[in-house]
């Protein structure tokens, strides 16, 4: 490219000749494939636009600000009464618990996988293990949680009924399983970034006499903070959007039902619902039979996801600004939270 720029431009008659490879000269099969690519590409954009616009129209027509601050009412006419304050609270509480567990565990795991990795067979196993958790359906995790938390030893996490059986469904138990959903995303994002920190940074720290643990705590982790935030945001997105664990492990009641006792603990050990289970409840697949509310709640959910995406984009652009630049392929990988261990 630079070589041609150094020469004087050719006469206009030659310059007007087509430089690029014209599709008219291609064999039919190639032309059809090219056209298909365009059709599919434009189709994808159109479909995305259609989904967003449809939800926008329905959401705006059914969402009233009062819905956001009213509690759901237990009346027969769900469509005309009550709001979804409780489901919103439920989403926030559940996400907070899930991330509170997943973030430290994920960062710790990522640190171990990139800095220590001993014994080697354990490192390989753990890597496959995280991949397996990432690929596990949330229904499976929910069923596991149900069986696990019904044991009397873990009864403090939920309610125990008068008959002696442990209910096993509460914000704490559902939050624990949600953390498994977010864990691979936090691990992947942090690990990717840690591996990109150049060796000389670590070596400089050791040369100054710092121990490995201090290096990790004071040098490496602060430098990969944007990636940790990125992973955490992706994890939050996944938690917010999950329904199966909520329906199975949270009791899926439309209001927050406390377990009795100290106020905060009562809510955490009690059952409730989130926006996702509320949408399911009011759709034709649940008993609420109020599709207007379902649309409104789904719209709020979509806005939350959009907000999280914007945050991720901001974090990535700020990361590029601080010199921790990624190659194009890594950008795609990390931005979409897809499996980064596919190298």
């Amino acid at each position, binding site marked *: 490219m630079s070589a041609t720029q150094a020469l004087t431009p050719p006469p206009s008659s030659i310059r007007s000749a087509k430089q690029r490879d014209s599709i008219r000269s291609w064999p039919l099969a190639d032309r059809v494939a090219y056209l298909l690519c365009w059709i599919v*590409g434009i189709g*994808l954009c159109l479909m995305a636009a259609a989904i967003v616009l449809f*939800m926008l129209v329905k959401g705006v027509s059914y969402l009233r600000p009062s819905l956001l601050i009213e509690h759901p009412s237990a009346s027969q006419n769900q469509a005309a009464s009550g709001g979804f304050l409780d489901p919103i609270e439920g989403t926030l509480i559940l996400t907070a618990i899930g991330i509170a567990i997943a973030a430290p*565990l994920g960062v710790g795991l990522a640190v171990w996988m990139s800095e220590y990795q001993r014994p080697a067979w354990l490192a390989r196993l753990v890597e496959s293990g995280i991949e397996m958790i990432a690929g596990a*359906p949330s*229904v499976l995790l929910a069923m596991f949680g149900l069986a696990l938390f019904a044991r009397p030893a873990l009864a403090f996490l939920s309610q125990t009924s008068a008959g002696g059986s442990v209910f096993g469904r509460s914000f704490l138990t559902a939050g624990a399983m949600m953390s*498994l959903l977010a864990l691979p995303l936090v691990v992947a994002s942090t690990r990717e970034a840690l591996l990109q920190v150049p060796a000389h940074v670590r070596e400089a720290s050791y040369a100054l006499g710092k121990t490995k643990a201090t290096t990790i705590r004071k040098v490496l982790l602060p430098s990969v903070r944007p990636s940790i935030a990125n992973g955490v945001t992706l994890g939050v997105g996944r938690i917010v959007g999950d329904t199966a664990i909520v329906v199975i492990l949270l009791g899926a009641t439309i209001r927050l039902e406390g377990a009795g006792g100290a106020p905060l603990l009562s809510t955490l050990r009690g059952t409730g619902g989130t926006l996702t289970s509320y949408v399911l409840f009011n759709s034709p697949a649940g008993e609420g039979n109020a599709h207007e509310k379902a649309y409104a709640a789904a719209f709020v959910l979509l806005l939350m996801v959009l907000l999280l*995406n914007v945050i991720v984009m901001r974090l990535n652009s700020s990361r590029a600004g601080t010199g921790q630049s990624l190659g194009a392929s890594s950008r795609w990988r990390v931005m979409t939270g897809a499996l980064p261990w596919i190298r």
Partner: protein
Amino acid sequence: MLKSLLSGRTFRDLLGDGAPAAERRTELALRTLAVGVLVVILGIAIVVFSKAWPSFSHNGLSWFGSGGDVDTQFEAMINGPRDPANYVYHFKAWPLIWATILTSGLAVIFGMVISILAAVFVVELAPARVKRAIDPTIRLLAGVPSVVYGLIGILAIAPWVEHNFISQQRKRSVEYVVQLTGANLSVAVLILTVMIVPIMVAIIAGALESVPRSWTEGSAALGVNRWRTTWRVSLRTVRPAIVAAAVLATARALGEAIMLAMVAGSRGFSPNPLDGTTFLFEPVRPLAATIVHYVEDLNVVPVEHTLYAMAAVLLVSCALLSLAGWAAKQPMKRYGIRT
């Protein structure tokens, strides 16, 4: 092995042996975390299989066979006797397994074709402005919760399909076996494809962008047109990523419970390809969706064991899927393609 697992004595580093106790404690703590992950996975397998065992042991291999209507069998369990000696365990899951194979298989096949074309479009053919708009769009689509897709499906797409494609004549042709509604196989496959395409496009596009430019430029220098370069050089190079995308998408499709529970129909029916086009409009209910559908009856013990049996089948298929993906990428290592 246990000793090496627990002790910090394998710690060899620039700092040499005799590292301070804090160092060893840190490594031990983090290693325990790592072992904890493995313990969790082992725990999942043990718990699910131990709860699933009674259903398998009562039915044997015929659990996977066909015969009878799945919902009637569940009803027999729910309304059956409540004393342990007489639990009704009879269950034949083939309609559910066939439904899972159909929905996931069709969705992944359509999804792969669409994603490869779309990824090529995004990376090679799209104008710069369109490309800048597509990045966040694909990320948004990948993040839309499945319950929103299910809502759109059941409130907008299913009635449209019912209105336009399910005529009385079509209903009559299968009326002795099943009732046709808008919630059927075609809507399920359509929405499932829409759900898995963004993930696949993201992975394949990411891999396409990392194909060395010298390879594509060399091909263009030899006079190969742009499409053929992409097809013969870039896409061949990213075959491991395509395999990985397919594995990931299949895993997502297998595990998709909520959207399919809302959209795919209320009976666990086994669609019959011999019905011609009506085959596309018959209700289906895959395994994961059935688990969600019957989870409120979990306190009935036979139902609980049957649902865990289905979860066990899901677990095994996801594990086999990862294994298949790993195996599919092995031959590609021969050609020096980064896997």
